């Protein structure tokens, strides 16, 4: 579903991502962990088509992100770490806008908007301008918008930040549901307990370099993910 080969991205002289390679198969929830400034967001933004990377390739469902950006974006959804949405739109207008862009048919968009707005308990607020939404409500709206067109690959940067425990639980179920249907999820998090319980595979990045990746068992063995992460951080120091 997502194949990253030798991805390198520099900001001036600093390599934010350095020769990173990852492979995410359909049905996998892939966690991406690392300290602040390790290169997680740069990697996710490169996959989402926001950043123009310097070298390497990113393939989504066999298509090159640089060569066929529109085709890649059609089957992808991205949720940034801070959901800066169009504040001047109402919630429902925003969802309609996203659905129009992805060409979601009327019945499907009605069904999905009603379903997800109900489970996230923001249906009554959809008529309000997004400017009046709290951070958590914006995050819920961004999640609903991301799920509207049934993407095959969902990229999320710290998706649980700002969500209440119930919403976080619902999101985890939704993520598993996507993967059960053959999709894939690539997300960054600092909550290692969540990553440990939720992810099929995990990658640890430091200073732009991938320092360990693989299935959860391969990466952590008998230890906790937190222990492994802290040990790796220590070793690298």
């Amino acid at each position, binding site marked *: 579903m997502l194949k990253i080969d030798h991805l390198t991205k520099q900001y001036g002289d600093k390599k934010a991502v350095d020769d990173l390679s990852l492979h995410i198969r359909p049905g996998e929830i892939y966690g991406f962990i690392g300290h602040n400034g390790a290169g997680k967001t740069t990697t996710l933004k490169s996959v989402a088509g926001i950043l123009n990377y310097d070298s390497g390739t990113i393939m989504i469902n066999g298509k090159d992100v640089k060569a066929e950006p529109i085709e890649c974006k059609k089957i992808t959804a991205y949720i940034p770490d801070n959901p800066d949405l169009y504040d001047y739109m109402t919630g429902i*207008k925003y969802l*309609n*806008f996203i659905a*129009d862009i992805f060409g979601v*048919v009327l019945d499907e*968009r009605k069904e999905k908007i009603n379903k997800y707005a109900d489970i996230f308990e923001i249906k009554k607020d959809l*008529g309000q301008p997004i400017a009046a939404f709290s951070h958590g409500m914006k995050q819920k709206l961004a999640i609903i918008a991301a799920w509207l067109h049934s993407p095959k690959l969902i990229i999320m940067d710290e998706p649980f930040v700002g969500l209440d425990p119930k919403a976080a639980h619902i999101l985890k179920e939704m993520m598993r549901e996507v993967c059960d249907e053959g999709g894939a999820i690539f997300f960054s998090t600092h909550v290692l307990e969540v990553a440990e319980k939720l992810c099929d595979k995990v990658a640890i990045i430091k200073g732009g370099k991938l320092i360990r990746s693989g299935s959860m068992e391969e990466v952590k063995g008998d230890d906790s993910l937190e222990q492994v992460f802290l040990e790796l951080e220590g070793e690298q120091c």
Partner: protein
Amino acid sequence: MLKVLLKKQLFEIFRSYFYDAKKNKARSKGAIVGYIVMFVAIMVGILGVMFTALANNLCGAFVPLGLDWMYFALLGLLAVFLGAFGSVFNTYSGLYLSKDNDLLLSMPIPVHTIMLSRLLGVYLMGLMYSATLSIPTVIVYMCKAKFSLGILVSSLLYVLLISVFVLTLSCILGWVVAKVSLKLKNKSFITVLISLLFIGGYYFFYFKAQSILSDFIANAVSYSEKIKGAAYPLYIFGKSGTGDVVSIIIVTAFVAMTFALTWFLLSKSFVKIATSSGSTEKKAYKESGIKVGSVASALFEKEMGRFTSSPNYMLNCGLGTLMLVICGFALFIMSGKIYPVMSEIFGTDTGIVAMIFCSAICIVSSMNNMAASSISLEGKSLWLSQTLPIKPWQVLRAKLSVQLILTGIPTLFCCICAGIALKYTAVEFILTVVMNLMFVSFMAVFDLFLGLKMPDLNWTNEITPIKQGASVMLSLLIGFVAALIPGGVYMMVGYGIGFTVFMLITLAVFAAVTFVLYRWLRKKGCEIFATL
């Protein structure tokens, strides 16, 4: 603490002078000096010269009659009007809508310190507008009437007191706007309506100014008696400019008291207003709100929604739409007066009348420049346009469409009115309509070009890209100059080759430039947008 906040506030106001948003780095010293020189040249070279001429005219008329006070009173009133008008909505957005209000309020900073730093920004804006008139007023007086140390001190006080009074007025009006907008349902449109009333008053006064001033000059003595009788405070205000100590003390006390009262009012309600999300009735969600549209219409509606959601955006970048309609109606209604005069001066077969009005309509249409700030206004939500499966051109086209529609339709209306009112020939009518619409197209692509070349995505207040952005300022200036070309060049040299040939050449030139800019947008512009 205050010093830090003031520094931040000043940096925010003049940020574009020191920081290159496109390259994401500080400007070189040379560039900073260049920008400052350009700004000073505009303020001093255009507004300063214009108001110096006005002051010179009035000084010559009033001072020989011993009506020095009336000279200061009249020009002082104009300076107050100009300053308050120029900064009232900036006060509202600067004080109450700044995105870092929450952040600053959460810090251990006294509320009055935050307010003071914010007010400094408002003060500078008001000073910038009022001083373009008050400074020429005192300089002309000292040069033409009298000069002494006392006059110098009173002149400095005159400029200072006007600027503080402008700040007070701006704060009161900004506070009223903020209070009212908390209760309104259609905030944007009502704010625009109120603003338009201001603007209407301004233009009414502006167009009447010459006759009012001539009347004042001709009947200066009788007006001075009336003012002394019915508006004595105005007399005192004028006297303060002449160096009268008692008047200076009274005016200073008045300005200080009104400012203190305003400060008290603001400090009582600042936190409540700045942190309020509004108490308007909640709109219930209806499933019927879910509708299907095409990608193009979704993007167009998004851009149109952005435009209509912001009074600042509508007023600063879309006033031309309304002005074109008003001009059209005015031409139609006043055709009986305008046509005989114009045809007598320029004749009916020279094409000059059609060219003059063609340029005039171009000038009014150049007031619309929503595309120039539309890129910067994407701000932090730019990621959406970049991650959705749409080509950059589709986004740019939607931005162009908004400007083309909101300017093109009223331009066409105004052209039709002009054609009927001024009895154009068929050739004049067709060519001026095509020329005006070509100009609208040129301005749309040019504005978007500027927006892409000078983006500023990291703003904390939308007023920055809308009002203070380099792209908007350049658009207004270059648009004005470009609009003068058809009429100006024709009157100077073009009439020799005849209306039709000149118009066809002008059209060809504008079409060529428009095409080049369009091609640039399609290729380079899309690349820039994709990598912003």
